[in-house]
């Protein structure tokens, strides 16, 4: 195998109200199953080391995360190189349980939007209440970004991680940079750093 490449080769936009960046390859495993099924839960927890996420949230262990995608779907995030091993652990944990686990790392892209005005950028593109009290670190949202599907969460108060389909990475990067253009901050939410 050669070194895996991302869709945009790590593109960066830094001249606006937030920094938009394509992140390096990210391991992602889709798990479809009945999330009430104890075998499915145990397998997800076992393979990730993270707790079972509640609806609309993401939980994180040292090096992996579990994101709630729907009542019958989770996403396991881990380093790209660990996917085969974690997928195997997941399959083993699932045993005979009726579930489907598959590596989707290369089907998707991971981008980040960073800075005190990052909320503004996301709120221009997604029909989500992004006010500081309404969307907080630990939450996870599958939604629409401009004209395509996307999901995001906040590892920290000033950082968004955005997941989109690989083929649409350029589009998502481009709409994020349009939304982050200079002079476009909405000025509606307090600056989390206390400045501005």
């Amino acid at each position, binding site marked *: 195998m050669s070194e895996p490449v991302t869709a945009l080769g790590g593109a960066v936009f830094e001249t606006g109200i937030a920094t938009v960046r394509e992140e390096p390859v990210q391991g992602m495993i889709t798990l479809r199953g009945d999330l009430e099924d104890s075998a499915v839960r145990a397998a997800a927890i076992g393979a990730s080391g993270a707790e079972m996420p509640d609806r609309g949230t993401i939980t994180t262990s040292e090096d992996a995360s579990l994101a709630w995608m729907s009542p019958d779907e989770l996403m396991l995030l881990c380093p790209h190189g660990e996917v085969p091993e974690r997928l195997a652990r997941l399959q083993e944990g699932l045993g005979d349980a009726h579930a489907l686990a598959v590596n989707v790392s290369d089907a998707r892209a991971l981008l980040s939007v960073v800075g005190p005005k990052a909320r503004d950028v996301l709120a221009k593109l997604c029909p989500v209440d992004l006010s500081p009290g309404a969307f907080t670190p630990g939450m996870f949202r599958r939604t629409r970004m401009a004209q395509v599907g996307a999901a995001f969460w906040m590892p920290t108060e000033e950082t968004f991680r955005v997941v989109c389909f690989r083929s*649409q990475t350029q589009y998502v990067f481009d709409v994020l940079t349009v939304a982050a253009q200079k002079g476009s901050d909405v000025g509606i939410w307090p600056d989390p750093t206390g400045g501005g």
Partner: protein
Amino acid sequence: MSKRLATGGRLIDRQHPLEFTFNGSKLRGYGGDTLASALLANDRMLLGRSFKYHRPRGLVASGAEEPNALVHLGEGTAMEPNQRATTTELFEGLSAQSQNHWPSLEFDIGAINARLARFLPAGFYYKMFIHPRPFWKHVFEPIIRRSAGLGRAPVAGDPDTYEHFHFFCDVMVIGGGIAGLQAALTAAQSGAKVLLVEQTAHWGGRAPLDGGTVAGSPVDNTVEEMLAALRALPNVTLRRRLMAAGIYDHGYVLGYEQLRDHAPDADGPRQRLWRIRAGHIITATGAVERPLSFAGNDIPGVMLASAIRDFAVNHGVAVGRRTVVVTNNDDAYLTAFALQDAGLEVPVILDARVLAEDSAAMARAKSLGIRVLMGHGIARVLGGKRVTAVQICSQAGDGTVLEQIGCEAVAMSGGWSPVVHLWSHCGGKLLWDETQAHFRPDVDKSPTGADGAAFVSAAGAASGAMRLADVLSSATAAGVRAAEAAGFDPGSVETPLAESPEEAPIAPVWLMPAHAGYDLRSKAWLDYQNDVKVSDVELAAREGFESVEHAKRYTTLGMATDQGKLSNINGLATLAAARGSTIPEVGTTTFRPPYTPISMGSIAGEARGEVFQPIRRTPLHDWHEANGAVWEPVGQWRRPYTYRRAGESTHDAVMRETRNTRENLGLLDASTLGKILVKGPDAGKFLDMLYTNMMSTLKPGRCRYGLMCSENGFLIDDGVVARLDQDTFLCHTTTGGAEHIHQHMEEWLQTEWWDWRVWVVNVTEAYAQIAVVGPNARKALEKLGGMDLSREALPFMGWADGTLGGFRVRVFRISFSGELSYEIAVEAGQGRALWDALMVVGYDLGVMPYGTEALHILRAEKGFIMIGDETDGTVIPQDLGLDWAISKKKDDYIGKRAQARSHMTDPARWKLVGLETLSGATLPDGAYAVGEGMNANGQRVTIGRVTSSYRSPNLGKGIAMGLVLNGPERMGEVLEFPGTDGATYRARIVDPVFYDKAGEKADV
């Protein structure tokens, strides 16, 4: 003449002079001016020409309701037509041009229409141009189109950017006047998240001009105090220059924010469209004053009393040195007082009312030495491009002139209409308030949400509360209602005590004088922008247009860009009088968003240029682009149609690629084909229902081609299914089909077969897939090494996992070309490296990438159908001779029952055949075969059509497929296909498989 006063102007900054141009002349204004006030300050009273008669027109109003003062704003690509001078903030270097005149504003040839006004009544166009029919399209329409319309369309793309913004709140208050401020404060005290928006650059609305006191202090102080209190609350968002354009179901509001219209040199987007979800909405949108209908009420200098007051008090601008006030209510007296305060002359106040005793306002006017004539009105305004005098008459009479008074301006007031547009957008009803002579929101018929509860409340003047104390108490009540509706407790709230002068009641006046003859009525304007007069509405009523909606469309009353903000009430009152009915019986026309026009750019938001729509790129996109790809859109994907070499035509490139794939080795980027994983104990049963053929009998390690139909039996998708293990299948779909077939699967699983144990995941983009096609395909892969791909190890229609050249791959032995062919799937992040490796090992083997057109020709040579070419949503597999792919053993599959219907089994359905021209030429794609005689519509009978047609380089002739009546039984017959080029093509019906009929080449 209009001019800037030496002092005054609460909104302007005289230390901040600005230069701007109007029709090329350099003019000066101040910061805080609107374009309208700055033009008046420079004695520019004539601002445009009317739509139909090209009459000289000036300002009538001072705000969003202005019908006349529309200009071209900006220059070049940034030019925008139909911009209202009254809502355009002045900035340094602003450039405006008047519109709708030729050759110049001062001298306009179209004004001849005004002389012909008698011959251009309502419905003139309908009556005049209906016969002879062909004349409309070729003679009348081109001429009318040239003279119609207001502004010019911009000539080039808009250089500005726009964006959307999603916002959520518990309570949204629309309107930053004193009612909006009070309602927002009340709601915010409950802890609710409140958004307060104001369409202008200033808070406080009309309150500072209308006077009165709140808790003993002047009302402008109160505005400042309220603002300070709101700004201190963390749960309140205040936004100026943001107009609520429309209210929709579920508390959805569109807000139009103008960010750089007043500061064009600043960075960032020009406008932002807010997409707001509010728990409860308060419309505190105020009221607009109505004109009076008297002859000559459109001459520049005749304006709403409130507008004349606004310009004087807000901008220190006098419309004229002598202003006659004409009114039917007390409010207009405030204008007289304001003008006198500014040192201007008010020779007379004409009050149409006859009161038993003087109202407080009248008494005050008289005490100030202003002449007041009760029961009087204007017979006619004199003047052309500006007012010179008014002729006074008795309101009760027919217009006999009693006296003529010279003046430069006329301030008119016909009363106030609450701005009920936003209240009405989502179903709020109105009631007619007899006392105040206006429509106001009916609280018992509020717009209701999904739970049946009201989700909009009106406050202040917008609710019909016309006096300061009532304005404030209605706003408090609305704030309490909104907070409670949004689930908050507002606690105990007090309304500050307000005082304002007593007012005598209004007396409705819909025509001045009451018995004006035709001569006067045909010069009394209702709709300024669309040139509709009292006499036009009366004519419509006489001709039977009794419904207000019909009369509106017949006369065009209220149909201009101002949507009748000034004219509607006067118009329907005129219609009511002409019909002999009451105003509530006539009712209003429908209020629709947007409240005032919003730009197309703001609606598009970010979706323009590169991001107009999402373009999907495969992992090999960059390679294609660097190697001459001519792109073909397939769904949202871009696929290479062909790779053109230097000096090569697209057609030649396609021919080269098609030949080479049959002779040597072709590579195709097949990454876009859909790949859907289906897993579970019931997966086989599920696929047996989805596909027409049997999938559950497929062995692991094998592939099978399958067809998918809709419930109605029509073919919707096809592709190869590979069984990965006992429980798992991988379904390939067409490029455009991945998402909707995935959705189709989920829908059946979630709604009908929810108890079947099946999971589905769309893994289309996880893999790059490369088709390695041609006689040298196996040799190339053997050079990569790592897997035994011999006929014995991996036979036709088999698949295997393995490692090729160090890449972890899955190899499918399938062929859509009829050649020896492998499709190799690899993780998308490795796709480019594998492609590069294949290009290297293929070098000695004659490798060439090929595009979608070569793919099409190769499959057509083999008679393989293509979804979207041979199918169009009305074609069933049986039409295409695909009966072999329909299982006879299964009890059911989606579409089976539909395919048994009589129409589906009709032997007269057109069936798939091959077509070969007698001349070797290529048939036009989509051409119809004609039969004998004519159909019921007098058209030639058709007996078939071409579904695919190509030049085949391998066969050296044109080949085609088509659907033909009784086609398979007519082999060898020659059909006629008239082309759109005038030629008739003759083609023979043949077998659709043109190449390698025995299918030996793929199975080697």
